[in-house]
């Protein structure tokens, strides 16, 4: 993997910049709704997300089911076309990329999927899948296949096997090897360990950490499990209902969470960082509201024990941009985040 030279990567210059990204899905209307000219309802899956990813940085994105994490990931790799906002990958506009530009983009940014049981073509051997990915992106010969299998911790002989002969963890390793075959600079892992047994999760997490160190990969690591993210991420963004509500260095966010939602997530989960910081907090109740009908003002207020009048009218912004630890909350019941 010595050929792995990030082209536009300089420290401090983000390789991926997402600005005010929105993605909504139209809900099908019944004929009666069409006749009565009821407007088409929209699910706002991603509703104004801005984030930056530095080269060689691991950004964790955490949120409940339905918070828009996977939609965000699919927008990033151009599987979905966002409705608003921009995604800029090292100077290339991802949303407008077509043809060769898009293919080059996929050669630099890869995705690992959640379910290792369906993310590999059942009709194709592991080796063939890895080889195809490399060949499409201009690699010659087939000796890289065995090397990649070793990189992800599989025996070279696995190249001949079909996915059905592999366990979940082995399949996920194979999927990672396939993604690495195109020599990407950014890896997006969408719930990549959620479907695995806990013991296997740890192994795969270690593999991700090792890849980020050895290959200098930047990663976006999406999970609903805080412990998983704290294990690999440098920086973490907490998503709620299509929006980032808190963002910052992983230790700062997990040790001194400032947003009531982050706090509730941490309290709901026996997390090593949160232990000892146990003040009395009211646990949040109920489910995440429907993204069809996002609450006015602060979108967390319907479940927030600290909500005041201003939360009902004003939408809190995630500001300002130059601070490492940022929160979108009017009340800040736990005080503002530490400076610096």
């Amino acid at each position, binding site marked *: 993997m010595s050929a792995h030279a990030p082209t536009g990567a300089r420290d401090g210059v983000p390789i991926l910049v997402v600005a005010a990204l929105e993605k909504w899905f139209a809900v099908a209307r019944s004929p009666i709704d069409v006749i009565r000219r009821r407007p088409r309802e929209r699910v706002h899956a991603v509703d104004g997300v801005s984030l930056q990813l530095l080269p060689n940085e691991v950004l964790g994105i955490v949120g409940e089911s339905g918070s828009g994490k996977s939609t965000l990931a699919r927008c990033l790799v151009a*599987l979905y076309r966002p409705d608003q906002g921009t995604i800029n990958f090292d100077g290339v506009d991802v949303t407008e990329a077509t043809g060769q530009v898009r293919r080059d983009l996929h050669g630099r940014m890869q995705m690992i999927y959640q379910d290792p049981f*369906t993310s590999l073509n059942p009709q194709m051997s592991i080796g063939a899948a890895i080889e195809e990915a490399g060949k*499409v992106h201009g690699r010659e010969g087939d000796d890289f296949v065995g090397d990649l299998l070793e990189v992800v911790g599989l025996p070279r002989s696995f190249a001949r096997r079909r996915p059905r002969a592999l366990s979940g963890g082995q399949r996920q390793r194979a999927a990672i090897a396939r993604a690495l075959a195109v020599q990407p600079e950014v890896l997006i892992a969408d719930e990549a360990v959620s479907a695995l047994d806990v013991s296997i999760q740890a192994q795969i997490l270690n593999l991700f950490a090792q890849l980020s160190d050895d290959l200098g990969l930047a990663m976006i690591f999406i999970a609903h499990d805080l412990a998983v993210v704290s294990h690999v991420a440098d920086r973490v963004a907490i998503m709620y209902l299509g929006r980032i509500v808190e963002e910052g260095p992983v230790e700062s966010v997990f040790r001194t969470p400032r947003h009531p939602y982050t706090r509730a997530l941490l309290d709901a989960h026996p997390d090593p960082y949160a232990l000892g910081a146990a003040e009395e907090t009211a646990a949040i109740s109920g489910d995440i509201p429907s993204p069809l009908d996002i609450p006015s003002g602060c979108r967390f207020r319907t479940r927030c024990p600290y909500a005041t009048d201003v939360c009902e009218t004003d939408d809190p912004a995630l500001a300002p941009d130059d601070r490492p630890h940022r929160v979108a909350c009017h009340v800040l019941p736990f005080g503002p985040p530490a400076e610096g």
Partner: protein
Amino acid sequence: MRTLAWAGRRAVGLRGEAADLLRQAQTERRWSNVTLGVGIAIVGALAVAGFFASVIAPADPNAVDLTQRLLSPSGKHWMGTDPFGRDIFTRTLYAIRLDLIVVLIITYVPMVFGMIVGALAGYFRGWVDAVTIRVIDAFIAFPFIVLVIAVVAILGPGLQGVYIGVLAVGWTLYARLTRGDMLVLREQQFILAARTLGYSPRRVILRHAIPNLIRSNLVFSMADIVLNLLLLAGLSYLGLGVQAPTAELGAMVADGQSFLLQAWWVTTLPGVVIVVLGAGFSMIGDSLADRLGQKFGVVG
């Protein structure tokens, strides 16, 4: 298979319901094997007989000898002779060959075409899909045979009309089947992965989607073969398919029908061959559906 045999040995040690279920599964599997074997034997034997017709056949299929007309089955004429004095056994052999070739063509050419159309519609969706599905619906709204007869009537009777008629209509069922599977398949993560790996739509469809769609089409084609065999025989019986004097099973059935009371064999024996051939294909199709059905479709 191996697992089942192993499980069967283990089943000796199992008691009650579990053992019953296992035994039942094994019995079903065994019957499926028998059915498949019998089906292949029937179709295989008839196919071999048909393809070596020129070697096996005792006579010329089209040699008219009016002194020998309507002879009952005997050592010299195993299946008797028809109203023109032609040897029915010989004609049956040639007819089997012709029917098999035509039926395979009118089944698998539409299958390949329909699969490609369906895969494109399901993969790209949008207006491609909307147009395709309307066209398919329009075809399916009419009875299949009526449409084929209409095409044959326009083009004039003969094999050419049958080919074009069935190709024009037959692809729709495969296209609809494949489109449905493709709609499920395109949300599968390995197809998404292929797209994010930067593969062209052509590569995603041909290398990643089609190999996973072919199974359900093959299962369906086995039922389709039987229908097409009957369709070809039916059209020829009506005088719209294969034209005299060429030997074709349906046409041979028609040849004898006005002599049914004097010479039952002229109509009955080719008819029996159609039934046996169709049953053979059905048996193969059923047991293949059992086997492939487990891994059917794309989910899991």
